[in-house]
C-alpha cells in the first residue's frame, strides 16, 4: 500500500475503512474488541447492581439521596451530541473532505472534553460531600463503573487528538481512513455505555 498515493473524491472508495485487507482486519478486530468491551461493562454493571446501596451499617449515602439529575442531563445531552458530530466527521471522511472531517472531529473533541470536565466536577463534588471511593461497597462499585467509562472517554479523546495531529498535514489516505473510522466507532460505543449509565445508575438510582 502506498502512503503517498493521492485520492480525489472520485477515486476515493465507498468504504475506505475496509478497502484494504489491513483495514478490513482492523475493522473486524475492532468490532470483536467491542464485543469484549460489552462483556466488560456488563460485569461492571452487574456488580454495581448487586452492590447498589450496600454498605456498612449506618451508611450515609444511597443512590436515591446522592445523585442530582440536572448535571447528568447536561452530560447526557453533550455526549449524545458528540456522537452526532462524530457521525458528521465520518460523513465527510467518506466524501473525502478532509478539512470538514477535521473540523467536526474538533467539535467532537471539545464536547468530549466538556463531558469529562463535568464528570470530574461531579466526582469531586461527591468526594467533598463525603462519598469517597472507600466509603462502602456501593461507593466502590459506583466509582469503578462510572470511572471506567470516564477512562474510556479520556482514551477516546486522546485517540481522536492523536489522529488529528498526526494526519493534519497528510490528508486522508488508505492507511489512516480505517483509523478515523474506528475511533468514531469507539466513540459511539462509549455513548452506548453512557446510555446505560444514565439509565441504570442515575435514573434508576433516583427512582430507588
Amino acid at each position: 500500500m502506498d502512503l503517498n498515493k493521492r485520492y480525489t473524491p472520485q477515486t476515493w472508495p465507498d468504504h475506505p475503512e475496509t478497502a484494504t485487507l489491513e483495514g478490513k482486519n482492523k475493522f473486524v478486530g475492532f468490532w470483536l474488541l467491542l464485543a469484549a468491551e460489552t462483556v466488560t461493562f456488563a460485569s461492571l454493571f452487574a456488580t454495581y447492581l448487586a452492590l447498589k446501596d450496600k454498605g456498612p451499617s449506618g451508611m450515609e449515602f444511597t443512590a436515591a439521596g446522592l445523585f442530582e439529575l440536572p448535571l447528568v442531563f447536561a452530560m447526557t445531552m453533550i455526549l449524545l451530541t458528540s456522537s452526532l458530530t462524530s457521525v458528521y466527521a465520518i460523513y465527510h471522511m467518506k466524501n473525502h473532505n478532509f478539512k470538514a472531517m477535521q473540523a467536526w472531529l474538533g467539535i467532537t473533541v471539545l464536547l468530549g472534553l466538556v463531558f469529562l470536565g463535568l464528570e470530574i466536577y461531579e466526582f469531586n463534588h461527591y468526594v467533598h460531600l463525603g462519598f469517597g471511593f472507600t466509603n462502602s461497597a456501593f461507593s466502590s462499585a459506583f466509582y469503578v463503573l462510572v470511572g471506567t467509562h470516564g477512562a474510556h472517554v479520556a482514551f477516546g479523546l486522546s485517540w481522536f487528538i492523536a489522529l488529528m495531529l498526526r494526519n493534519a498535514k497528510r490528508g486522508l489516505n488508505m492507511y489512516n481512513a480505517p483509523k478515523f473510522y474506528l475511533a468514531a466507532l469507539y466513540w459511539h460505543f462509549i455513548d452506548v455505555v453512557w446510555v446505560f449509565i444514565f439509565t441504570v445508575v442515575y435514573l434508576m438510582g433516583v427512582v430507588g
Partner: protein
Amino acid sequence: MAHDTHDIHRSRAEYEFVKRKRATEMRGQLTSFAMMIFLTLIAFTLVAAEFSPYFIVPILLLLAAIQVVLQLYHFMHMSNKGHGMMAFFMFSGMFVAFLTVLAMVTIVWW
C-alpha cells in the same frame, strides 16, 4: 494478494449520485439523533415526574434498549452488509452480558 486496493474512477455523475446517497443517509442519521434526544427527554421527565418505580423502570430500560439499537444500527452501521460476523459476536457478547447481569441481580444475595 488482496493487500492492494483496486483503483476506482467514478464519473462525475456517479460521484454526484453517491454523494447524494450519502447526504440522504446523513439526514437519516439526524433523525436518529433527534429520536435519541427525544427518548432521553422522556426518560428524564418520567423520573422527574416521580411515577411509581414499577412503572418507570421497565420503560427506562426499554428506552435505553431503543437507543442502543439506534446507535448500533444507524451510527455504527451494524446493518450494513459485511457486518454479519460482527453482529454475531456483538449479540453473543450481549447474551453473556445478559446472563452476567441476571445472575448478579438474582442469586448473589439470598
